[in-house]
């Protein structure tokens, strides 16, 4: 049996020391309907000091509207765990979300033209 002495395996390569599903307290079903590109933004109505580390980190990433996928990527967490964390933030009023494309009021053709013009400017 291997006995870990604690220090030797604590490095960058070791990655996350807390299992992702422990972060979400074992929950795998988010309470909010969130898509990969649902935009989440902090409301400023909750003090981050009251949150645990992962929730606070997720909230920090949402100071400007940020899609779920990007929060997951930056926190290096699986998508589903990220959705659970973000759902918690939305449920408590700390953040708000918009499904992808909503509020756009844009015809798909106009949207495509915006994207095309943007690509041509690169």
């Amino acid at each position, binding site marked *: 049996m291997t006995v870990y002495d604690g220090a030797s395996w604590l490095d960058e390569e070791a990655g996350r020391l807390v299992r992702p599903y422990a972060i979400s307290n074992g929950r795998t079903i988010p309470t909010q309907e969130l898509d990969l590109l649902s935009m989440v933004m902090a409301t400023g109505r909750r003090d981050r000091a009251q949150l645990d580390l992962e929730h606070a980190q997720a909230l920090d990433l949402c100071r400007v509207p940020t899609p779920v996928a990007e929060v997951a990527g930056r926190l290096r967490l699986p*998508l589903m765990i990220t959705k659970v964390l973000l759902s918690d933030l939305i449920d408590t009023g700390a953040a708000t979300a918009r499904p992808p494309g909503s509020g756009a009021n844009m*015809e798909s053709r106009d949207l495509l033209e915006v994207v095309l013009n943007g690509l041509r400017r690169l």
Partner: protein
Amino acid sequence: MDYDGSEPSSFPIAVKVLIAGGFGVGKTTFVGTVSEIEPLSTEAVITEASAGTDNLDGVAAKSTTTVALDFGRITVDPRTVLYLFGTPGQERFWFMWNELSEGALGAVVLADTRRLDACFDAVDFFERRGIGFLVALNEFDGAVRYDPEEVRAALKLHSHVPIVACDARDRRSGVAALAALVEHLLTATVPSSL
């Protein structure tokens, strides 16, 4: 930029394009080359039992697989952000993952002319879903350059599907392939004034 959360219109629009193709064809390279940020990655669990969603209905669900998703970002204007998702190359499961393909503007199918069969599945998938796509022939060093029409015949592509040459390691080339895709999507979209 100042966002006011009380106004739905204050949220920028995020749109996605899928970068598909077989394993090892250069999807990750492509995403990394054109992205304005260091590409990000996340993992999603897909279950065969719940095809169509990525929700786990219970721990006892059968045939779950974890797919890794690489993605990058291009801000095309202050209000519109394009996300590029590389589809998981080794896993056939992603085809059942609606969340990835739903709402996608379109797709770039990267193809290696030495292994054209590797992109059959992606071409089939986008045709069946009615998602607009083009085929970008990734020009690897030393690869035999095929005539685009030979490729069209081999892939049994409809005449309207564009085939472009692309070097996934070159930003300008990757962006040009994306622009060609959007031009193609525009030709397939009825002008709103009609």
